[in-house]
């Protein structure tokens, strides 16, 4: 379970750890830099969760016959 957890939590760690470094109101194409930083990781989260799903052990993926 280590690999899927690492893939899934990457955007979590990145978003939170980046806050001190991207804390600025500079206007980047209609968003303050702080907002843009958070938005990037929100949008990236589904991609990382899809990757995490593929890395799950077989039993976790093939459950319930669906």
């Amino acid at each position: 379970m280590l690999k899927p957890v690492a893939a899934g939590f990457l955007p979590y760690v990145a978003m939170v750890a980046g806050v001190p470094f991207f804390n600025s109101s500079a206007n980047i194409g209609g968003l303050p830099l702080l907002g843009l930083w958070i938005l990037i990781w929100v949008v990236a989260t589904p991609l990382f969760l899809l990757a995490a799903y593929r890395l799950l052990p077989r039993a976790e993926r093939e459950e319930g016959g669906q």
Partner: protein
Amino acid sequence: MTVPLIITAVIVAAAIVIGFASRGRTRMDLEQWTVAGRRYGGLLLWVLGAGEIYTTFTFLGAAGYGYAKGGPVFYILGYGALAYIISFFLLPPLWRYAKRHGLFTQADYFTSRFGSRWLGALAAVIGVIFVVPYGTLQLEGLGDIVTTVTNGKVSSAAAMVVAFGLAALFVFASGLRSAAWTSVLKDALLIIAVLIIGIGLPLKYFGSYAGLISAVNHAHPHDLALPGSSGVLGVPWMISTLLLTSMGFYMYPQAFMATYSARSAKAIRRNATFLPFYQILLLLMFYVGFTALLVVPGLKGPGTNFALLDLVKKGEPPWITGLVGGAGALAAIVPGAAIVLAAATLVGRNIYRDVIRPQAGDVAVLRVSRGFVLVVMAASLYIAIASPSLIVNLLLTAYDGVTQFFPAIALSLIWRRTSKTGVAAGLIVGVGLVLYLVISGHDPIWGLNAGLVALAANAIVTVAGSLLVPGRASREVMAAYAPSTAEGAIPRTAVIEEDTAAP
């Protein structure tokens, strides 16, 4: 101002009809009423999740918080996505456990996993204490919306009593189904309303989002970064709040319970994967809040809740005001319904049955829970009418409280020795600290969200208590978290092998 009133009233009436009709031909037993027979996948699970999560707080609170605080509002954009990441790993094992043990409520999990009715009752009491303010929040949101869109023609109290009186009745009749089906209408309208005003209003006044942000930066330099306009919500607050709220997200009794309604673990994971896209709508609400800051300046305190509605009335035609009013009202009614259902079931099952009348069967529990739907709603109405307050602060207090369930639940999945002694001590310390810190005005404390400080103390006590008096969950108990290829049909030995392979 009769057009907005009529449109809002029609939308609310439609939701109430759907709420009653959602029962269909189903015979209501406890499992149908509380977790809709554990049959939801795809769209209904998605809207039920979104229905409970994206509430009046999303609608009025996000715009109002952006208006009042500036940059700190971006935590609201981030925490949902972080919560879905946690849920992707946390909820599937909990769902399997709940299905195999026939659980209905969040407190049932504590009773079952730690083998203690008293611990279940403690969890139920804590759940009810914190979920009622959250329900009250929904009521107040609805009252604010209706009063504003009708220019005060309909009083806030009258709107609350009518809308939530009827909501209590449809919950009584249809249970969780009413929340899921009304949520279909609510999400459709909410998305349309958010798109219309979130794109329309900023562009109307500022030409582009870039123009809006430049104008805010010019008028309020640096307020769109931390610590924002209040000056106290800095980087440590932001980080601690993201951590706290992402852990607490699914700890609300109604959100936890809605998870049980899933058809499969896979459906839960698919939901977690795609719900982050819903967060993007919140960004549009921040833009509305920032627009309001410049166009309708000077709102203070609880008045910032009205930032969005004031701006909509000023800048949009009456029918859009009505649509926004109706969508906003549903964003209060749907979660309100789910909250009342969860609170009533906690009382019926985990306090009435587990502690007062252990011999009560499912039929009696259903009857008592239904009675408590009416009691909890009446209590919420009383609190909402007697003492209105700023939406976001109320939410944060409730949030700090329910998050205290997180250490026990997360540890119980991976550590057999997590014990009822440790969990009870941790919960009492965590909840006690939250109440003390928030009520005595120490939030944030040392620049950190007070709820996270309480959570850390709670986790330490839970672990220490479990080391001193270890729990002894059997291999079978731990195996209930593990997947099986054919749900429920797998031979016991195979389940145990899965367990030893798990981390």
